[in-house]
């Protein structure tokens, strides 16, 4: 299990985090076309190599953090930040409802 460098908690086991998908910007809903919106929802860069992505540190600081990870080796490093500040987290795009295999209400 690789570790993720949490800017608030230090390096922690990846199992403490939830993957939130590739960092990307949500299109303006007022002007977006169907094609653009669905490309935003579904298309992936699916990079083999270093990529920037969001993780949610659910059992730790409960912050959404941005991390760089090499998807071939699972090496991780803090997202390149300007002037030493914690990098702003870009929105992730993970569409969809949770799986249906659970009992509700």
């Amino acid at each position: 299990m690789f570790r993720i460098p949490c800017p608030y908690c230090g390096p922690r086991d990846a199992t403490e985090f939830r993957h939130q998908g590739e960092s990307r910007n949500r299109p303006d809903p007022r002007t977006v076309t169907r094609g653009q919106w669905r490309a935003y929802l579904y298309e992936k860069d699916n990079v083999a190599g270093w990529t920037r992505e969001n993780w949610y540190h659910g059992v730790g600081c409960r912050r959404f953090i941005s991390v760089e990870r090499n998807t071939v080796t699972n090496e991780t490093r803090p997202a390149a930040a300007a002037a030493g500040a914690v990098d702003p987290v870009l929105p992730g795009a993970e569409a969809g409802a949770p799986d249906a295999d659970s009992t509700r209400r």
Partner: protein
Amino acid sequence: MTARYSALSLLSRGLRGRNWPLVWRRHELAPTYDAVIIGAGVHGLAAAYYLAVNHGIRNVAVLDRSYLGGGGSGRNTAIIRSNYLTPEGVRFYDRSVKLYETLASELNFNVMFSQRGHLTLAHNDSSLRTMRWRAEVNKLQGVDSEVIGPDEIKSLVPYMDVSAQTRYPILGALYHPPGGIIRHDAVNWGYARGADARGVQIHEYTEVVGIDVEEGRVRGVQTSRGHISTPVVLNCTAGWSSLVSRLAGVRLPISTHPLQAAVTEPVKVFLNTVVVSGTLHVYVSQTDRGELVFGASTDPYPSYSTRGSLEFTEELAGHVLELMPSIAALRVLRQWAGLCDMTPDFSPIMGETPVEGFLVDVGWGTYGFKAGPVAGEAMAELVATGKTPDLISSFPLSRFADGRLVGEKGAAAVGH
């Protein structure tokens, strides 16, 4: 030429100490092919086989950057079934099961399809409801599938703890008698041998590094062993399908996740069905060699790493022992991982792309091996006729932009 396999020929060659001819031959790369198939896994090899057999198109190259069957086709847990949720899924996989049933005799290669029955356990009322839904859709398509209760489960799998006191009590299961396991390598080799015998050229260790596209259509491929001209390129890769498609300028709605598996040391056979639990994210079967073969759901983050993780085996063991607590002493011998191309609707992407002549048979998630024969058959038909067969008409790439996703999503959290 291919020598026929049989018990008699085996005995006679054995006694005379004669070797068999090459199962598939090695060739120099030709400058031109009628079609180039990328990926010598079950999909690519089956497509090549059916192109030659059903359509007489034999000037075909199958390229693989590594050894034959070394990707997902040689790393999956070899479960075959057709009890899907949607009518289009059921029809499609049912055709695949039918092809698998006659594959050994068709290919003259024993693929050891063991139709031992397939159980999908339900641990809560919502999964029981989904099992019923699947059973009803299956039956409407003529597929043998029924919801059974804990007592019947216990008689099929005496090791199963079906008591009500467990943390995840077993309320029932979807029982699918035609489901089973197969020898995955044998399927790959059998198709390779059959395709080779009909003139298809299989090129291992031949990596595609570029795809030539001019004026919106395919002209050829660049490989690590040289350039090939061809009007048709069929992307049959898994794990790398989005990167290969990008060589042709086609973007896919795919993220690649490792799917891990593990095998135990052999013990005397005690498990004669395939057991799947979606809630516990585990599936297990026992081979004729006595090994238990386990799988789980894909890793929860995309990755191209196939090194495997410890937490996978830990979770797997915990879940297996929830089901069969008496086998705690069994030891895990080996773990491995393959790469799965996950699509947003747990269904494949098959057919044409915006680039003319560049076809895809990708996005197979965790269920690609099950579909190898039918996908090959359908893609061969598409290549030969230029028309998309009905059987795959629900799975075009364009469905994502059109917002017409396939409904397997509801049931396919773990779909083995």
